[in-house]
C-alpha cells in the first residue's frame, strides 16, 4: 500500500505551523546572556580613501563597549574573504582577485562598504555612537556602470585590476561560428541589458558571534544557505579557526534566493569581535543595509547574433557579454556569468556552433553574485528574446521556429557545443501541452477583443532549459570551483523506530522538512510524523554544501537515498539474523523485511529496536545500531526545462502592462511533493515577472549613490501585480542519472518567466515597429516606445 505521505503526495508543509504562528527561530531571535549589539559604520561615498578614523566621541558614548576598525583586524591578521571560484581569461591568465576585507583597509569602494563597527550594550546605543565615529574620507572618482568601467578614462576600482577587468573569458568554437555566419541566409541580432536586481529576502541578514574561553570554541549563528561552507571559508581563510573549534549554525532562515550563499564580512566581524571583547556580539541588518550590502544579481550588457539558414534553422550563435561584478568578488561571483551562463546558451536548440565572450568588470557598486537562477535567467532571456527576433527575420511563427530548432527527445543524451550534456528532455512535448493549454489558436480573437477596448495584447513564449545541482565535483573543479559539489546525509533510526535525518542541504523556504521526510516515509513505511529532518548546524551534520542552484533534492535527496540504501542493507542483515534466514532470502517492501516464500516478516521498527538491544547479535559479524551516512557526488547536472507562456494587455495611453495570463509547463523529472513544486513555480514566476516589469536596481553613475535604496523606489512585485497562474508538469522524462529521477524546481520559474513576459510585451508593441525593450518594461518606457513608433505604424 502506498504511503499516504510518500512520494507524489501533496503533503502540506510540516514546517508551516511553526512559521505561520510566529514560532520560527531566526538568527535575530537568539538572545544570549551578556550579549552586545554591533552596528556598522558604512561609507557614504562610492569611492574614497580613508585617511583616518576618530572613535573617541563614540567610545565615550553611553553603553559603548568597543569601536573596531580594519586596522584592528589587520593587526589580528584577519584575512581576506576568499572567492570560491577561479576563472582564467582567454590568454590563460587567472582572474584578478583583489583583497576583500571584512572592514575596509584604507580605501572604500562602494556606498555601504564597511569602515568600522561600534559594539554597545543595546542596538540603539550602538546606532547613536556609530554616528559619532568621525571618518576622514578623501573622495575619489567612481564608476558604477559596467559600460563606462571598461572605457579608458574610467576610474580604477582596484590598482591590481587595470581597466577594471577581472577577466576576459570565452567559451566555444569561434572559427566554426564565424564560418557559419559566412554561410547564413538570415541573421538576427539583439543588444540587451539584463537589469540589476536586489534580492530582498524577507529576513534581513544577521549574525551572532560567540566565544567560549574555557574551551576555545567559537559559535557563529548566521542567516546562511550553507553553514559548512561558511565554516570552511571563514575558519580556514579569514579567521584561522580550525573546524573542531568553530560551530556554524544557520537556524530558520527567512529566504535567501542566493543572497545568503556567500560568506559575508559581517559574519567574520561578529565572530572575531566576540573573542576580542569576551562577550557575544549580534548584528542584524536593517532593510536599508540589505539594499546596500546584500550581493545583488544579474547586471549584464550583451550583444548577440543568430545565424540561420533559409528555413530558419539555427546555424550559429555569437554572444558578447559585459558582466558587472561590483566592487569586490563575492564568493561565487566569477562563476555566474561564465559557467552558469554561457554554458546554457544552447538553450533547447540544436544550434551546432556557439561562441561566447564574457568580460567581467569591477565597479563601485555592491558585489554581484548568484541570485535565483544565477546566470541561467540571463542566458534564457538572451536566447529567448533573440529567438523571437529570429522568428521575425525568418518570417516564422514564434512557436514554429522553436519547434523547428528543438533538440529532439530522440537525440538525448545531447552534447551541446557549450560543454554541457543534456541527459533528458522532450521540448516539443512541453510546447504541445502548452499551446492548447493557453488556447494559442484563440489568441487572435482575444487580441481583437482587447483592441476593441483600446488595449494592445501580446503573447510570449519562453522555452527554457537550465542546469541544476552543479556537478560533478571533478568537472566543477576543472572549471575553476575551489570546492567539491557533493552532498551528505545521515539517517539515524532510533530504538523505537522514529528517524532523524541529518542533511547538508539547508532549507530557507524550500520545504525540506516535508519533502525529505516523504522520502523516508515512502522508503521505510514509517509515519511521516516520526521523521525529523535536521539541517543547518555543523555540530550535528557530518558535512554539507548547502542549498543553492536547485540542488537540494537532486543532490541532497540523492545522498539521503544512498544513506537509506545503507540502512536497508544493514536492516536486512539484522532481519536475516532475527528471522534465522539467509540474507539473500530477505525481501524488502515498504519497510517490511520478509523471508521469501514465507509469512515470516519484520517491520523496520522491530529491526531498529533489535539494532539497539542486540542481546543475541553475532557481534563479530553484525554491529549494533542503525545509523548510516552517505556522500553523493552527482554524475552530471540535472536539466529542468519547460515552456512558459505569458499574455499581457497594454494600455497605450499610459503604457501600463498588465499580465493577464501566465502558464507554465515544466519537466522537473519526478515530483515528490506537487504542492511544494507548484509553490516554488509560483514564487519563481513572480520573481521573473518582477524583473521584467517592476524591479530595477539603479545606481547613479555620476554620484555613485544607490537610487533605489528602499521599497519606495525599488518595486517588489505584490500579489495584485500578477494573475492566477496555470501550472502543469509532466514526469515522462525523469533525470537519468540520479536515483530519484528528479531535476529540481527552485529556480525554473524565475528563469523562464522574464523572457516570456518580455516577449509578450514586445509582441503587443510589434504593431508599432518595436522589436525590443529593455527590462523592466515600466509604463513610461512602454509609452515612449509607442510615442517613438513610426507614424505610419502608429496610425494603423
Amino acid at each position, binding site marked *: 500500500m502506498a504511503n499516504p505521505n510518500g512520494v507524489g503526495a501533496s503533503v502540506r508543509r510540516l514546517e508551516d505551523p511553526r512559521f505561520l504562528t510566529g514560532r520560527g527561530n531566526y538568527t535575530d531571535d537568539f538572545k544570549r546572556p551578556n550579549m552586545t549589539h554591533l552596528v556598522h559604520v558604512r561609507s557614504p561615498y562610492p569611492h574614497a580613501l580613508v585617511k583616518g578614523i576618530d572613535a573617541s566621541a563614540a567610545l565615550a558614548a553611553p553603553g559603548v563597549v568597543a569601536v573596531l576598525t580594519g586596522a584592528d583586524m589587520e593587526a589580528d591578521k584577519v584575512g581576506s574573504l576568499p572567492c570560491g571560484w577561479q576563472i582564467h581569461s582567454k590568454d590563460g591568465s587567472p582572474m584578478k582577485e583583489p583583497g576583500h576585507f571584512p572592514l575596509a583597509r584604507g580605501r572604500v569602494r562602494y556606498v555601504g562598504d564597511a569602515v568600522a563597527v561600534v559594539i554597545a550594550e543595546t542596538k540603539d546605543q550602538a546606532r547613536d555612537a556609530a554616528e559619532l565615529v568621525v571618518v576622514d574620507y578623501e573622495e575619489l572618482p567612481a564608476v558604477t556602470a559596467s559600460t563606462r568601467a571598461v572605457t579608458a578614462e574610467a576610474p580604477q576600482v582596484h590598482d591590481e585590476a587595470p581597466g577594471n577587468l577581472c577577466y576576459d573569458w570565452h567559451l566555444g568554437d569561434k572559427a566554426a561560428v564565424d564560418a557559419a555566419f559566412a554561410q547564413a541566409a538570415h541573421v538576427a541580432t539583439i543588444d540587451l541589458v539584463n537589469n540589476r536586481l536586489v534580492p530582498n529576502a524577507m529576513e534581513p541578514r544577521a549574525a551572532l558571534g560567540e566565544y567560549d574561553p574555557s574551551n576555545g570554541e567559537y559559535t557563529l549563528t548566521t542567516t546562511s544557505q550553507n553553514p559548512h561552507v561558511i565554516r570552511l571559508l571563514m575558519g580556514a581563510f579569514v579567521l584561522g579557526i580550525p573546524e573542531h573549534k568553530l560551530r556554524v549554525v544557520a537556524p530558520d532562515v527567512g529566504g535567501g534566493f542566493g543572497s545568503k550563499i556567500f560568506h559575508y564580512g559581517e559574519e567574520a566581524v561578529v565572530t572575531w569581535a566576540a573573542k576580542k571583547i569576551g562577550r557575544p556580539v549580534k548584528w542584524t541588518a536593517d532593510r536599508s543595509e540589505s539594499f546596500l550590502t546584500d550581493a545583488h544579481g544579474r547586471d549584464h550588457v550583451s550583444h548577440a547574433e543568430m545565424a540561420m539558414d533559409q528555413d530558419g534553422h539555427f546555424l550559429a550563435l555569437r554572444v558578447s557579454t559585459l558582466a558587472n561584478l561590483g566592487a569586490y568578488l563575492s564568493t561565487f561571483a566569477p562563476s555566474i556569468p561564465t559557467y552558469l551562463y554561457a554554458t546554457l546558451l544552447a538553450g533547447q536548440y540544436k544550434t551546432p556552433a556557439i561562441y561566447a565572450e564574457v568580460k567581467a568588470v569591477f565597479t563601485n557598486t555592491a558585489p554581484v553574485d548568484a541570485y535565483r537562477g544565477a546566470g541561467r535567467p540571463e542566458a534564457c532571456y538572451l536566447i529567448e528574446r533573440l529567438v523571437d527576433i529570429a522568428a521575425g527575420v525568418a518570417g516564422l511563427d514564434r512557436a514554429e521556429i522553436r519547434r523547428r530548432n528543438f533538440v529532439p527527445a530522440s537525440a538525448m543524451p545531447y552534447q551541446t557545443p557549450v560543454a554541457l550534456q543534456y541527459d533528458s528532455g522532450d521540448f516539443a512535448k512541453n510546447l504541445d501541452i502548452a499551446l492548447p493549454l493557453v488556447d494559442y489558436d484563440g489568441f487572435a480573437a482575444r487580441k481583437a477583443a482587447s483592441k476593441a477596448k483600446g488595449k494592445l495584447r501580446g503573447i510570449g513564449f519562453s522555452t527554457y532549459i537550465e542546469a541544476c545541482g552543479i556537478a560533478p565535483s571533478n568537472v566543477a573543479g576543472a572549471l575553476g570551483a575551489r570546492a567539491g559539489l557533493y552532498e551528505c546525509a545521515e539517517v539515524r533510526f532510533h530504538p523505537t523506530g522514529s528517524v532523524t535525518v541529518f542533511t547538508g542541504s539547508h532549507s530557507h523556504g524550500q520545504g525540506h522538512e516535508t519533502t525529505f521526510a516523504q522520502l523516508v516515509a515512502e522508503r521505510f513505511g514509517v509515519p511521516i510524523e516520526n521523521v525529523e529532518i535536521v539541517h543547518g548546524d555543523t555540530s550535528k551534520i557530518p558535512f554539507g554544501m548547502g542549498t543553492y542552484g536547485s540542488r537540494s533534492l537532486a543532490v541532497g535527496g540523492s545522498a539521503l537515498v544512498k544513506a537509506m540504501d545503507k540502512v536497508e542493507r544493514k536492516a536486512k542483515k539484522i532481519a536475516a539474523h532475527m528471522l534465522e534466514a539467509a540474507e539473500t532470502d530477505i525481501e524488502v517492501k515498504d519497510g517490511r523485511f520478509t523471508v521469501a516464500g514465507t509469512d515470516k516478516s519484520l517491520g523496520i521498527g522491530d529491526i531498529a529496536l533489535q539494532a539497539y538491544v542486540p542481546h543475541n547479535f553475532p557481534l563479530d559479524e553484525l554491529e549494533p545500531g542503525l545509523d548510516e551516512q552517505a556522500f553523493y557526488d552527482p554524475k552530471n547536472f540535472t536539466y529542468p526545462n519547460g515552456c512558459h507562456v505569458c499574455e499581457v494587455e497594454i494600455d497605450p495611453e*499610459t503604457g501600463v502592462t498588465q499580465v493577464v495570463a501566465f502558464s507554465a509547463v515544466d519537466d522537473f523529472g519526478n515530483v515528490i511533493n506537487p504542492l511544494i513544486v507548484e509553490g516554488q513555480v509560483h514564487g519563481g514566476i513572480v520573481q521573473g515577472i518582477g524583473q521584467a516589469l*517592476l524591479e530595477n536596481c539603479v545606481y547613479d553613475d555620476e554620484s555613485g549613490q544607490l537610487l533605489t535604496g528602499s*521599497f519606495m*523606489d525599488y518595486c517588489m512585485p505584490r500579489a495584485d*501585480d500578477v494573475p492566477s497562474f496555470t501550472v502543469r508538469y509532466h514526469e515522462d522524462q525523469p533525470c537519468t542519472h540520479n536515483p530519484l529521477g528528479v531535476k529540481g524546481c527552485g529556480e525554473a520559474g524565475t528563469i523562464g518567466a522574464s523572457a516570456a513576459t518580455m516577449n509578450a510585451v514586445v509582441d503587443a508593441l510589434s504593431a508599432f515597429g518595436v522589436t525590443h525593450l529593455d527590462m523592466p518594461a*515600466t*509604463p513610461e518606457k512602454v*509609452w515612449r516606445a509607442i510615442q517613438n513608433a513610426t507614424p505610419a505604424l502608429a496610425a494603423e
Partner: protein
Amino acid sequence: MYAFTYQRPSTLADAVAAAQAEDAKLLGGGQTLLPTLKQRLAQPSALVDLSGVAEMKGINAVDGGLEVGAFTRHSEVAHSDLVKATIPALASLAEGIGDRQVRNMGTLGGSIANADPSADYPSAVVALKATVTTDRRTIAGDDFFTGMFETALEPGEIVKSVRFSTPDKAAYAKFRNPASRYAIVGVFVAKYGAEVRVAVTGAAGSVFRVPAFEAALEANFAAEALNGLSVSADDLNADLHASADYRAHLVTVMAKRAVEAAG
C-alpha cells in the same frame, strides 16, 4: 530612532499646549513620520500623539457636505456609508491610498498637514471646495497648500477637521507609483452646477488646478472636451519613475478618466 518624550492628550486644547514644546512633532497615523524617525531623519524632542483627541474624530453630514475629523483614518473614510452615499469619489480616493496597512493607520489630517506632493488627499481638498478647520481658524482649501511639504498652518497649529462640499459629480483618477503606490499623477474632477474644478496632485511640487481643463469641462463635461489640451511639463516633477513630460501627458489622461468615471 532617537529618544523623545511622548504625550497622548485627550483634548485639542491640551494637544495645542503640548505642541508648543520646542521641536515637538504632532503624530497622526504616523505613516510618514514613523519611517522618518526610524531612519533617523528627524529628531523631535517630543511626540504629541493625537489619537486620543475625540473632537478630531468622526464623519458627519453637514449642510452642503461632509465634515471629516482630522484624525479619521483612510480606511474609515473608505468604508463609511455616509461618505459613499454623499461623496463616493472621496471614499474611492481613500480606498486607493497606499496599502491596507497604511489605510488602517494613516489619517486625513496627517496627510494634508504633511502636504506630500504625491499624496492623494490634497487633490480632494482643492477640488471639493473644502475648508480646513484648525484649533484657531478656518482656512479655505484653495489657500491651504502653499508648496512642497508646505501649508498655511502656523507652527503648532492643529487641523481639527475638513469640510468637503458635496459636488453634483466627481471622481478621482490616480496613476500610482508601482513601488510606493503614491500618486505619480492624481486628478480629482468635481462638478458644482456650471462650475468644474480640476485638481492635480503628484505631478508638481504641490497640488494645482488646471483652469484650461476646467473651462473646457464647464463648456462640455465630457472626456473629449479635453482632447488636445495639456499642461506644460516645465514645472512638473521628474524622477526615476516618471519624467516631467510623461507626467504632463498623464495629467490629461487621468483627467479624462476622472471625467468618464464621474459620469
